[in-house]
């Protein structure tokens, strides 16, 4: 564990990523304290530029809402949806991939055809369909993102399990008569943990992007402020009042970048041999 932390700390990008993420998480947690009032409330006249007014340091949008307040509250939604939908995708993808890789044969065939079915549908289109059918809400958005993002998890886990299954220690566990579920849980999956962790960090970034895209199209939860909604709301005036779209866009960019940096750092720290080979 300490060796892992040391290798992780050697990667400067990963440290920067972690620092950015910590700031964003702190902002999300403290949002009700920083801006106790609703971010939807109109606080000033519309189209105030950033740094022009002390009470709205990042300016106001077309309806006179404080952009900084929106940004702070939007971080909650982005992080929440990113994490929960990734977790949901893992809950589907890991068992499917593990079962397919471990049992092989017709189980593998059936599960993989199902996975391919989901992979061949354009994922964003599918997400739009799911959200619009179910009424936009945080729950339906999470569901939509999970539905489109579990297939890569299943494929990756299947591949790893397939190669681990032929390891002698897994075979030894089978020969000693341990039940399949126990072999998968104690012998196989712990050794797939590191690629899953790396993939999960990158999936969170993708989920945030997906949520933003949905909100941009007006398919976000109408009750919560989100970065994607803010970008979408400013799009009609993007040439004159560019900051209304640009500021939340920059927030999305920085968050996704931070998650990717952390993912990369985790990958290098969890697979030290790989990194050595690359240098």
């Amino acid at each position, binding site marked *: 564990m300490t060796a892992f932390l040391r290798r992780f700390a050697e990667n400067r990008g990963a440290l920067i990523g972690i620092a950015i993420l910590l700031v964003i998480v702190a902002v999300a947690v403290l949002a009700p304290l920083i801006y106790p009032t609703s971010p939807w409330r109109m606080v000033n006249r519309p189209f105030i530029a950033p740094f022009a007014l002390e009470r709205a340091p990042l300016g106001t949008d077309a309806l006179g809402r404080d952009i900084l307040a929106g940004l702070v509250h939007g971080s909650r939604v982005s992080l929440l949806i990113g994490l929960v939908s990734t977790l949901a995708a893992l809950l589907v993808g890991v068992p499917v991939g593990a079962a397919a890789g471990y049992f092989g044969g017709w189980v593998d065939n059936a599960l993989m055809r199902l996975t391919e079915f989901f992979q061949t549908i354009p994922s964003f289109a599918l997400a739009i369909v799911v959200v619009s059918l179910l009424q936009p809400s945080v729950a339906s958005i999470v569901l939509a993102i999970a539905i489109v993002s579990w297939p890569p998890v299943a494929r990756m886990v299947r591949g790893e399990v397939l190669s681990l299954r032929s390891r002698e*220690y897994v075979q030894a566990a089978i*020969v*000693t008569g341990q*039940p399949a579920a126990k072999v998968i849980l104690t012998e196989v999956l712990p050794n797939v943990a590191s690629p899953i962790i790396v993939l999960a960090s990158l999936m969170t970034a993708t989920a945030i992007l997906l949520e933003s895209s949905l909100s941009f199209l007006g398919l976000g939860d109408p009750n919560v402020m989100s970065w994607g909604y803010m970008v979408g709301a400013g799009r009609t005036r993007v040439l004159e009042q560019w900051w209304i779209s640009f500021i939340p866009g920059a927030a999305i960019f920085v968050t996704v970048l931070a998650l990717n940096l952390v993912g990369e750092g985790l990958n290098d720290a969890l697979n030290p041999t790989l990194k050595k080979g690359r240098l």
Partner: protein
Amino acid sequence: MTSPTAPMPILCVRDLTIALPDGADRRHAVQDVSFDVGAREVLCIVGESGSGKSITAHAVMGLLPRNLVTRSGAIALAGRSLISRSEEEMRAVRGREIGMIFQEPMTSLNPVRRIGEQITEVFKAHGALTPPERAEKAVALLAEVGLPEPAQMMRAFPHQLSGGQRQRVMIAMALALEPRLLIADEPTTALDVTTQGQILKLIERLRRDRDMGVLFITHDFGVVDDIADRVAVMRHGQIVEMGSAAEVLRAPTHAYTKALLAAVPSLTPPPVAATLPDVPALTVENLQKTYVTSVGFFRPPRVVAAVADVSFTLRRGETLGIVGESGSGKSTVGKCLVRLLEANGGAIRLGDVDLMQLRGSRLRPLRRRIQMVFQDPYASLNPRKTIGRIIADGPMAHGVPASAAHDKARELIQLVGLGPDALNRYPHEFSGGQRQRIGIARALALEPDVVVADEAVSALDVSVQAQILLLLRDLKQRLAMSLIFITHDLRVAAQICDRIAVMQKGRIVELGDTAKVFADPQHAYTRELLAAVPGRRQPSPRALEGA
């Protein structure tokens, strides 16, 4: 020490010392190593894993890993120093003046290029000859290394060749520019015993035809006996003994050499102690396993019978050896017995149950009765579990309470010769031999009726191998264990098996008492296998001592 065969040695290594990076288990990979290789001479460097023999060879080629530094010493090829040459100069030396062959003929060739291209590439890289001359020379080389139909062979891809043929191609490439020195790093270790014999004969012939010196790295004393003029024995980075093959092998002076030679299993089976009661522990009837690979739509699938038809009976307390070359189906039989593979037909009777009739949850309770010891001590233990859990997991899966299972593990770990403190440690803290002991303890934890050992000592150094064989023999007597011992190594089989089944192409071609099979083989294939065992020209020193 000067070479008696040549006035001026081709390769001359003096006081070579190579440092290991800080934190390694010793300071020098190689320390004060000196030797010569003369023209037409084969010098074998022999030693166990970690002895520094491969590092020495790589140093001569200038192919040391970056973290190893040559501290001192001299390496001279035909009187010219190779130390402190630039990478570019060394590249000119490699191939042109030193040829090399490696252990893995499977991975040393580029799989997507034709054999001919890969050989002519050697000339091209050194700017030798014109293209038509190159092709002509390549065909001649393929003929010289004994490949059939060299002209057609030029157009073949590596996957179309057998392991032995690939190693011949590698030798052809190594010889292309007529080097004066050939370095062979375990060139026959990955090959079957009959193929190994042919490759050794080829190297033997080529060095005479071409006046070439050969530096031959191996861990196998049988191979040394077959090919060496002189032998250097390495241990912990130092040469402990060097001399003519006859001196070192027949009258070793250093204690380590003596110990190594004594550890080489003799081909003469030990005398049988007592006859066994004729109670069957395991009966296998007409076992079949075929692999069906589909090669595409509208084409008949490729069907390979890995096990065509195998029947035998294992008596209680008996050790039955299954020997054969790679692809003979011996490992498939073992995997079918423990039901890691589903056989296509036949019966596996343990007492009155036919294992083949059971599957799923009805099979699991019976798995206890037939256990396996695996080949690779490094892959067969889960790196994330303590030794205690690895051993106790099996009994616990069969309903033994945790405390009883851990008591059992403590008892077993001592039975296989490790301390009880081992139980709380992780696999990476143990050596290969110790791990194999743990693997045996895991198999015994379930008190099985039958143990299947699949190449259980093949990955081990010869001295460790001898210890594990001793342990198995001891356990056999103490526990009346019935053992199926799968191996490609006839020497090992001779030492531990009561009876031997010789497999070829999925069938048992000969089955009989070990002593009888070795003394009077009935089947032509058995005779061929026995003749190919390296180092059987003369009886081994141990057999002499024992006589």
